């Protein structure tokens, strides 16, 4: 069993117009910049994929990664908890112009909805957002004298994540707080695509240390020395750069 693919283009080839795509990362930590940029390359070459629904905690920062994907005009709707950032101009401008849809979800609810999608739980109850605008229209129920909001699972056609180490079976480890949403999103998509800083032979990752078991992963591509969104933004990088 070998889930590694030959190049970034092949890695993102499964994403089609109108799909729902989860993208891992919290801000720049754990953000699969190379996969996102490969998707932008494809769009610039072919006009596809577009009309994407993107699920991520944030809305991008600067003009690289997720922000560049939005700036390229590929995103119809964003599901996230915190679309503000140090330099959120790309999303902010489109949103205020009514050109991109936003579903705002409390961060813990976002995480739990994604996990539920991966775990086959279509709905659950949470105290979060009860009595607030973000609970409007959602069923409410009382358990043991306290009120809760019913939330639904989130699932995706494709997930793009960044890992630290992968093996050909798709077993993954992450690096520090770059873990964040990545393991959950791996569970919740029909196809999970992983960029890993290192691909090692099966058996080289200690079975005790595997964070994402390979059953949740369909494609693996090695991206040694991946770019970090924060570094790119500090260098005022723009993707794609001016030719």
């Amino acid at each position, binding site marked *: *069993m070998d889930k590694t693919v030959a190049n970034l283009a092949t890695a993102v080839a499964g994403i089609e117009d109108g799909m729902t795509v989860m993208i891992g990362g919290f801000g720049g930590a754990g953000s699969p910049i190379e996969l996102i940029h490969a998707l932008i390359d494809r769009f610039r070459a072919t006009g596809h994929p577009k009309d994407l629904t993107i699920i991520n905690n944030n809305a991008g920062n600067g003009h690289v990664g997720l922000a560049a994907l939005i700036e390229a005009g590929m995103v119809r709707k964003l599901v996230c908890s915190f679309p503000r950032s140090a330099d959120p101009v790309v999303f902010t401008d489109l949103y205020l112009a009514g050109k991109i849809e936003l579903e705002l979800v409390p961060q813990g609810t976002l995480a739990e909805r994604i*996990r539920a*999608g*991966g*775990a*086959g*739980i279509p709905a659950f109850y949470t105290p979060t957002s009860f009595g607030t605008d973000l609970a409007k229209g959602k069923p409410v129920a009382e358990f043991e004298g306290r009120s809760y909001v019913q939330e639904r699972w989130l699932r995706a056609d494709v997930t793009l994540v960044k890992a630290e180490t992968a*093996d*050909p*079976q798709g*077993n993954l480890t992450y690096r520090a707080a770059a873990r964040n949403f990545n393991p959950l999103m791996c*569970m*919740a998509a029909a196809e999970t695509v992983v960029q890993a800083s290192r691909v090692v*032979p*099966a*058996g080289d*990752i200690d*079975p*005790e240390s*595997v964070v994402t*078991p*390979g*059953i*949740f992963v369909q494609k693996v591509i090695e991206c040694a020395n991946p770019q970090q969104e924060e570094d790119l933004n500090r260098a005022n990088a723009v993707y794609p750069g001016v030719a």
Partner: protein
Amino acid sequence: MTAKLTNNQIAWRAAQDITDGAYVNLGIGFPEKVAQYQPPGREAIFHTENGILNFGEAPPQGEEDWDLINAGKRPVTLKPGASFFHHADSFAMVRGGHLDVAILGAYEVAENGDLANWSTGPKGVPAVGGAMDLVHGAKRVAVITDHVTKDGKPKLVKRCTLPLTGVGCVTRVYTSLAVIDIEGGRFVLREKLPSLSLDALQAATGAELLVSGPVIDLIVPEL
């Protein structure tokens, strides 16, 4: 009825339908045998509810590690690429539709896909384990079973009489006599022992067998 497949032979037949790279859960007991008969060149990855992916066969006697067991609490070994995880993650794999196949035993399978395999009624101590999760989780739920009970009564029935494990969940049954799909609420015969007449097979079956295409000879090696 004379000839029938041994349990090993039923397990062999079920194993032929497992594709390379499939993630598979085998029920406790008889279904565990399926792992022994993977066709050459194919490698399935086995999942056990108690938190291991990609485990291998039992260790030699005396080398058991009692922290390294399967859902049947029998000792196993690890293959390269194995991983450990807790029970909630394990059943996320099950319930979330990440397993390709679950192969389970049965007391009864009904033509509507209902399965009864956890309780023989109100007597004794009931025990369910992970069966009810598996039948609603794996992409394909198959059953391996003798075609009839020890008393010669059909195990493939019109409607289950024993407590259900799951509703409309089984899609293929490998028996000691035949391979039968469940489609549109009907048993559809795919393969039968060549020595067995269709009438004899129907007589041993508790619901009508539909023949909607060629019926292949069910031929398995001596095992």
